[in-house]
């Protein structure tokens, strides 16, 4: 990658830089017309690109097969277009059929997919003996097992946290806090690498760092 030399490439680079600065002027200065302009350009272009891709895709996966004689594709096309009646009060009921098919299908796929990886595998791997035999392996086995049991007991909703549940639920909540803390740390990494990507871009445009 080299610094562009032709007009459109250069222009693009600077347009990108100005837009980046415009958006960040909201944080670094205050809300201002330039920020609002960039924000509204973003909304417009994001929707335009989604629309272009949707049209391309619909053509590819439904219209083309239909024109090639796969008549059955008329059904999802009608159902898909039916979604748009949501804007017309009198015909809104049509959209409910489209939503109903979509909801039934998504629920079916998600529910069937969740049973083994989210539930059964998680229980199985909690009680499977560790593959290694060091002290640390067994310590982790105990920590993970007891931790999982305690944390799950915290999420019992129809028993008060008294008696046996008092210590387990308390410990369970702390165990959940450790997991949330790790997520906290990882999210910081994510946010910071995103931001440094943008700042690196600005520095590249200004030729302070190589492209």
């Amino acid at each position: 990658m080299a610094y562009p030399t032709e007009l459109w490439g250069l222009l693009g680079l600077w347009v990108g830089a100005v837009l980046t600065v415009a958006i960040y002027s909201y944080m670094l200065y205050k809300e201002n017309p330039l920020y609002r302009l960039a924000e509204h350009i973003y909304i417009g272009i994001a929707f335009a690109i989604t629309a272009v891709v949707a049209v391309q895709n619909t053509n590819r996966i439904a219209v083309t097969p239909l024109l090639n004689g796969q008549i059955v594709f008329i059904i999802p096309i009608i159902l898909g277009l039916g979604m748009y009646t949501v804007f017309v009060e009198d015909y809104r009921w049509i959209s409910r059929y489209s939503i109903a098919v979509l909801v039934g299908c998504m629920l079916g796929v998600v529910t069937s997919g969740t049973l083994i990886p989210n539930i059964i595998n998680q229980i199985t791997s909690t009680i499977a003996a560790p593959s290694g035999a060091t002290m640390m392996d067994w310590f982790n086995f105990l920590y993970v097992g007891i931790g999982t049991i305690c944390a799950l007991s915290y999420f019992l909703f129809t028993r008060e946290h008294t008696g046996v549940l008092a210590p387990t639920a308390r410990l369970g909540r702390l165990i959940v806090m450790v997991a949330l803390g790790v997520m906290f740390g990882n999210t910081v990494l994510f946010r910071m690498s995103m931001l440094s990507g943008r700042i690196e871009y600005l520095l590249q445009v200004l030729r302070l760092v190589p492209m």
Partner: protein
Amino acid sequence: MANQTIFDRLDKLDRRIYYWLIVIVIAWPLVSPIGLPITVKPSSRALYDGLTAVQEGDVVLIDIFMSVSTWPECMGGLVVETNTLIDRGARLVYLGNSVDVSRSWERLNELVPRLGTLEYGTDVVFLGYYTGADAAASQMAVDMSSIFPADHFGTPIDDLPLMSDANSASDYAMVLFTAEGEVKWIQQWGEPYGVPVAGMGIAMKGSALAPYLASGDIFGLAVGVRGAAELEKLAGMPAAATTTMDAISSTHLLFVILIVPANLPIIYNKIKGGS
């Protein structure tokens, strides 16, 4: 008491001061890099080892879930994955669940020029964008051509020799996810068909992926820009992710430096008042 007024005053400080501080702290190491050493985590190594164990002619599915916005996190890792797989002589099928996947594909081609020299349709295919999440992945496992009657460029899938060898999940040696969307591959490909799944997660997904790693549903994992930098180190090709690591160090240091004094008065009061 005097301490508290300082803390109070800091508390009321204009938030823009913090924002400018972060800009400076990121820019500085980018302009003059320090180059702190990076150690490789076992999960990243497992991913890399998996890539290098791919046999010549194996077909690998690569889901570029990332939108252009997450390039800083995952593009580095995708470049290493692609380079390594090309070295192994694997056949590559790319697709993506983000509307701007074609842009990511172009960028990948800029960063891995070798990709363009492979024979398109035989060694590499770019299927393009798909929607429908889990339903789509579940359908692809049975019949790719029903979701992709043609590739991104409009070539009918029947005219691509690679795709006639790779029309259902059992034809694939591996699925690699990028950024997000790993669950559908684990649930719809890995679990029912036994296709090995691994990939790059954005850092935010690090925790979400750990249980899958522990339960063996995924065999390897590189997390965020740090994981990308580790892959770059393993493959011996330091690039963008490695450069970013210094800025990561400085910002993370700033972050902890800000949290600690803010909490000192609370802890001080707890100790004084509590016991």
